[in-house]
């Protein structure tokens, strides 16, 4: 039997990035994936005969350029379309507002004064997101090995690097932990625009726009880039699975062995050191380095609390990771028509979030275990640009819908049909007649996502991405920076710094950290 230097648990995109980076550095790597195929939450799957869709993540907006470069994804079949995908803020009372270019380089449908205000705010948001960008790309600072003055020196270095003016610096710090609603109110008037920005800030988290720190979510998004363009987004041809296909090809080229249907049941630890894994079928595989690309709390339950300290187990248990985002897939007879939206703009990202207040009201019930009666959502029609995803003339709709609290009070069995009705009412209001064209519906609640994709809580980021669970507290102190209390065991998934989304950054950073540690 071949022996491996490294075992990567989980063949999601971060696992593949970590594995390939390690493989290219000369390590012999085995990836163990529980599902029948790789890709995790970034796959393209058939949900109805002839209809294929990005099964969870559907908009690509933060795949890191270094990941593209190091894995040579373009050589392995990834093609970025150059034209940027617009975001369309839908409205039932007004014409839609269209953000063109990379996150609204220009605005269609706003007054001149609003467009000017937006230009200013957009520039400011990108400037400030740019300050955070290096922190969201690197390994988090290691407080344990650093004095307080060194830490603040590092922070200041990061800041001054950007050569901010004094005024800008003050405003950056003032805004850092603000809620997005207040920031938007300081700058903008247009409810459609504010609704869209508010939605983007809270997408994938358990926050409303008026929750303190909600602005961070928007910065996180804007710190992403595609094809060198900050804030750009696209719907990959072939769905998110196309990214995975390129990553899979890159992995094979690097000599990585991938085994699917290989669920890890236990991480073997001897004298405080990870020495291998046991699979569901009791097969044991040993390696010097174990890299976990799955959720951090799942990782530490595979380790078992017997091998961990009480305080650490307590911290892991307290990681908040109950998702609020559901995924809707519709197989439609024909493309729907959203009110007032130009034909070509249907290829964009269509957002139902008519105002900040609407998003906030959608959030409110989720605090008490109830779904939004008027949910907010981000809709894509991927088959318009890529007809291979649907049979001739038919159409695929893919939507991320909030808020659908993981722990629904009445339980999802009872709640799911009701939630679907609430979603459909919203869709019908914005695209009259859509209901009549439905051939098949698939709604994945966070509970479904947890079960199907092995993502605890069905959480976007494998754990809330909020200030207290970021940087050196992500996923928890003691396991930030990819090392864990168990020697030889590393984390590299979305639950680690900087967080989730199809970026590959946790995977890349973890691999680099492991290489730098040199076994």
């Amino acid at each position, binding site marked *: 039997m071949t022996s491996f230097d490294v075992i990567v648990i989980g063949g999601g995109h971060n696992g593949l990035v970590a594995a390939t980076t390690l493989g290219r550095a000369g390590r012999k790597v085995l990836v163990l994936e529980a599902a029948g195929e790789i890709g995790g939450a970034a796959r393209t799957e058939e949900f109805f005969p002839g209809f294929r869709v990005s099964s969870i993540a559907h908009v690509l907006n933060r795949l890191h350029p270094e990941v593209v470069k190091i894995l040579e994804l373009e050589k392995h079949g990834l093609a970025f379309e150059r034209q940027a995908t617009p975001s369309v803020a839908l409205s039932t009372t007004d014409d839609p507002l269209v953000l063109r270019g990379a996150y609204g380089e220009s605005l269609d449908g706003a007054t001149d004064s609003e467009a000017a205000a937006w230009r200013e705010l957009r520039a400011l948001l990108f400037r400030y997101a740019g300050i955070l960008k290096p922190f969201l790309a690197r390994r988090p600072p290691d407080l344990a090995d650093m004095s307080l003055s060194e830490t603040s020196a590092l922070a200041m270095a990061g800041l001054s690097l950007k050569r901010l003016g004094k005024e800008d610096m003050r405003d950056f710090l003032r805004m850092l932990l603000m809620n997005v609603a207040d920031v938007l109110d300081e700058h903008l008037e247009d409810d459609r625009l504010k609704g869209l920005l508010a939605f983007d800030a809270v997408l994938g988290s358990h926050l409303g726009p008026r929750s303190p720190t909600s602005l961070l979510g928007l910065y996180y998004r804007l710190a992403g880039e595609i094809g060198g363009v900050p804030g750009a987004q696209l719907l990959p041809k072939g769905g998110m699975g196309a990214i995975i296909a390129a990553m899979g090809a890159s992995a094979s080229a690097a000599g990585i062995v991938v085994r699917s249907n290989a669920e890890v049941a236990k991480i073997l630890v001897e004298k*405080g050191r990870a020495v291998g894994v046991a699979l569901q079928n009791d097969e044991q595989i040993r390696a010097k380095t174990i890299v976990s690309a799955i959720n951090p709390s799942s990782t530490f339950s595979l380790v078992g609390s017997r091998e961990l*300290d*009480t305080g650490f187990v307590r911290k892991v*248990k307290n990681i908040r990771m109950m998702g609020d985002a559901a995924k809707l897939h519709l197989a439609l007879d024909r493309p729907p028509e959203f009110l007032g939206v130009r034909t070509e703009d249907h290829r964009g990202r269509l957002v139902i979030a008519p105002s900040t207040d609407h998003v906030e009201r959608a959030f409110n019930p989720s605090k008490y275990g109830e779904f939004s009666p008027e949910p907010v959502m981000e809709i894509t029609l991927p088959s318009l640009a890529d007809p291979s995803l649907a049979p001739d003339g038919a159409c695929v709709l893919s939507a991320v819908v909030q808020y659908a609290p993981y722990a629904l009070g009445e339980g999802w069995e009872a709640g799911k049909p009701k939630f679907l009705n609430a979603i459909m009412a919203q869709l019908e209001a914005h695209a009259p007649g859509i209901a009549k064209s439905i051939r098949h519906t698939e709604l994945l609640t966070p509970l479904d996502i947890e079960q199907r994709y092995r993502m605890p809580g069905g959480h976007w980021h494998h754990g809330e991405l909020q200030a207290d669970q970021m940087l050196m507290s992500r996923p928890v102190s003691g396991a930030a920076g990819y090392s864990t*209390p168990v020697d030889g065991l590393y984390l590299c998934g979305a639950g680690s710094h900087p967080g989730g989304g199809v970026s590959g950054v946790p995977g890349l950073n973890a691999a680099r950290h492991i290489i730098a540690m040199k076994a």
Partner: protein
Amino acid sequence: MAKTARKTNASTRPPRAALQGHFRTLRLPSPLQPRIDALAKTEDWYTWAGYKAPLSLWDEELEYFTIRSQAAAFDISPMVKYRIEGADAEAFCNRVTLRDVSKLKPGRVHYTAWCDDAGHVLDDGTLFRLAPTHFRLCCQERHLPWLLDSTIGFDVMVEEETEAVAGLALQGPTSLAVLRDAGFAGVEKLKIFDLAEFPHESGMVAISRTGFTGDLGYELFVPAKLALSLWDRLFEVGRLHGIRAIGYTALNRARIEAGLIVANADFVTAEHAIRGDRLRLPDEIGLGFMVDAEKPHFNGRRTILAARANRSMKHVLVGLEIEGNIPAEHAIVYHRQKREVGLVSAAIWSPMAKRNIAIASLSRPYGDTVTDDLWVEIYAMRELKYERLMKRARIVPRPFIKLERRTANPPANV
């Protein structure tokens, strides 16, 4: 009724505050209070872990000699006690505490300690293995939240039993005779650190050959409602063997002679320490011998072993013998009479050793590799005037006294 961690999540568990109501009464009475009150001639009380407890009862000098020449009854009911029970009880204790619990057989007791993740000592105490899946942990401080959090992933139940269980230490050369005459048949078979249960009235009393005096002695644990009748049973037969109740001052002398440390007297426990430099790793307070690097994982293992490997231990706890006869309590320790290197945490003139002894914490390398030329500065109050004495101190092994009768088998039966 062992509960798994899964079942004991926050929503199904009663609020933790309700599980430990001890603080609601200031100076709780002990289950033995009526008997102790009746003997308290000096009315010399202090608070021990929230309980009203005597410093002395009639004469602290004679109380001390009761320990060394008769049978001294000391109420240890205020000691914090936890009941640990379940299929994983051994594994649980092994993960929480430093020593290897798999080596602790049912019917045995060991002295151990436990640490937080950073390896800092949370407390020391005794672990009683009453049955294969049933333990009792006795200590100075409260730890219920920590212990409950430690149950995550273990099939084990942890329950506070401080108030439900009364404890009585019977220490001194005639202690066995008292127990024998009280009718605890077979108690003489107990070797040091053995534990057995004996019938008492409607229930059972757990008797262990343990104690805090370095002498022959036993500790008895009974359900609180049987405490008074147990006391009476011992005192009725004990009169001829010189049984007397004692307070903490006498016990404290005995424990210093025995070289034993007291949490929050000789070191600051991790959850009480406010200042970061007061935290202590086991090796820094003389408990390094407990750390078993070969046993399965335990809390703090990683940091303790790393500190050993990096030689980054900062402190050391030592026994001192000091010239003269004036106790050096809380005296500063100097190297070459100049450099301040530590503090004495406990000191007495030892009547048994006939030496002036102390327990002190020193900053390494002093006490570790540098052991010569140590001094203590004693301020002796003499009629409203301090006399400052600089006395030579020598590091000596603990215990300061070793009594054969403590471990003799069979024990002296006088």
